[in-house]
């Protein structure tokens, strides 16, 4: 009688195994169905390649291995369609209401402006989503370009291409009123502050490499975790890029940006760029588009439309 109790364990796992196989098969079918979703993309070849006249001589159609120069604006994953990725979900003020296709929010607007310069408009632009981390790992990409506040760093550039910057940001701290971080004027005042930040971000590196607090910072999967920890009184301050920090303060009662760090802090400026596949032929084309938008002042205009004034937050000296 007791023996049967013992035997029930392997018996159950065997049954589970038999059930798992059809489950996997169904999963594969669902994935396949999702994958064939975007075959509605029209081939708007006529609009592609309008910019960067120099590339008329470049070898068209070579998808990889030809970086530098003006790039090839036709070298997208799917001919005639530009696939742009952002976070899932995408956060304000970068993308408003998690709907990048509307062009509302700073990064949504920048992406559409860059796409337009590259010769892709309307239906020729397709949005997709990736996590922050997966897009900067080596390997095949599901997007032509990806933007979700990726700081340009040499480490990332070893694995992926990064475009010229479309925005330069300071790191900033959000704290509740009366927070231990509130009265700091230099980084030295922040040693005993309990920090939080998102994993894999330059904000976390900044805490560990520049502030070097005595207690280890808490680390979260995304900004939502850092916000919840602030509200739960588990951390004194969370570090974000400044526009995100300003937005976070609007969502948490009694919080404010208690300090921002100069862009040069820690020896690196925090500049956001598009992430592209390593050696992508598109990189040169994206760079050219960003240069054009910067020179024409359009990038500045987008910034003023979507990002709040960042000059108000107190500046904290980095020694």
């Amino acid at each position, binding site marked *: 009688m*007791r023996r049967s109790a*013992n035997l029930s*364990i392997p018996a159950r796992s065997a049954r589970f195994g038999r059930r798992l196989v059809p489950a996997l098969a169904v999963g594969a079918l669902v994935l396949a169905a999702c994958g064939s979703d975007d075959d509605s993309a029209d081939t708007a070849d006529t609009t592609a390649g309008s910019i960067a006249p120099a590339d008329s001589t470049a070898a068209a159609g070579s998808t990889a291995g030809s970086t530098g120069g003006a790039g090839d604006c036709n070298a997208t994953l799917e001919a005639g369609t530009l696939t742009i990725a952002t976070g899932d979900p995408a956060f304000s003020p970068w993308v408003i209401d998690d709907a990048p296709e509307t062009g509302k929010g700073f990064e949504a607007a920048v992406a559409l402006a860059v796409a337009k310069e590259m010769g892709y408009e309307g239906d020729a632009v397709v949005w997709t989503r990736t996590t922050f*981390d997966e897009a900067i790992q080596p390997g095949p990409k599901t997007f032509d370009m990806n933007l979700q506040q990726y700081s340009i760093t040499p480490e990332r550039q070893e694995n992926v291409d990064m475009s010229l910057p479309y925005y330069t940001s300071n790191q900033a701290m959000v704290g509740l009123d009366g927070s231990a971080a509130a009265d700091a004027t230099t980084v030295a005042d922040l040693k005993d502050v309990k920090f939080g930040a998102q994993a*894999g971000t330059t904000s976390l590196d900044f805490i560990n490499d520049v502030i070097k607090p005595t207690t280890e910072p*808490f680390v979260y999967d995304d900004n939502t975790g850092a916000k*919840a920890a602030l509200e739960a009184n*588990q951390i004194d301050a969370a570090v974000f890029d400044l526009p995100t920090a300003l937005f976070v303060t609007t969502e948490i009662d009694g919080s404010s940006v208690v300090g921002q760090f100069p862009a040069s802090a820690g020896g690196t400026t925090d500049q956001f760029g598009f992430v592209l596949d390593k050696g992508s032929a598109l990189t040169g084309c994206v760079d050219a588009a960003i240069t054009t938008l910067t020179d024409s002042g359009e990038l500045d205009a987008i910034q003023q439309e979507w990002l709040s004034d960042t000059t108000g937050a107190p500046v904290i000296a980095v020694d």
Partner: protein
Amino acid sequence: MTAAPTRRAAYERAQRRRAAIIATASTIIVVTALIVLVPRASGWEKVRQAFFDGDVFTDSFPRLIEAFWLDVKILLWSTPLILIVSLLVALARSVRSPALFPVKAFAVVYTDVMRGIPVILLIFLIGFGVPGLRIVSRTWSDPVIWGTVALVLSYSAYVAEIIRGGIDGVHESQRAAARSLGMTSHQAMNTVVLPQAFRNIVPPMMNSFVSLQKDVALVSVIGPVEILRQAGIDKSKFANFTPYVAASLIFLAITIPCTRLADHLLARERRRTGATTIS
């Protein structure tokens, strides 16, 4: 004992030797095939770089060991708590007095609900939710504390069911015999039923313990940097998955002895109950 073996004993020894030879040969063939064939795959070199990078391994390993200490601490705190809570829940579910029905109903609802909620949600809910109410001081808002509470609540439901199964598995005649000797219902439970029940449930309990060792890592979603989070940070830093390989080696160093022990206990239990192994 060393008298001349019977024909049956000799036959069984020959059978065992034959089984051992076949097992060794088949293991050698499979392992050799893996060692020879896997590196021949066209993508092996890339996979090797991404998962088995020696430099990344040595760089991240000390940090991972340090972070693993937090996992061990959470495990050591939560295990005795789980045993206590689950025993209480199991006893509550086993009460037979009609007056105590509300207790029994609570235990049933508790196990149903807690087993139905994903551990990760419970950790978010309790880890951020309880300190978020601002009824506890700053020191007691620590996510490690509330993450542990969430693990204890979830695992207690599972372990309570194991214990209840053990209690139900003790034949009713044991209780009847105890009562007929003049024991009270309490005495029968404590001195006759529970000791037998616990012997039966040690192996499944070890299973839960091994499972808990890995689920401890889920506490990292509310902030604490334990081994899996540290591995994730290092993975991003090096754009290489070797830190996860290093982390799993550290986990294995703990879980393998536990699973071996569980198997050993299971085998002993089989011998004790006289069940013969049928291959």
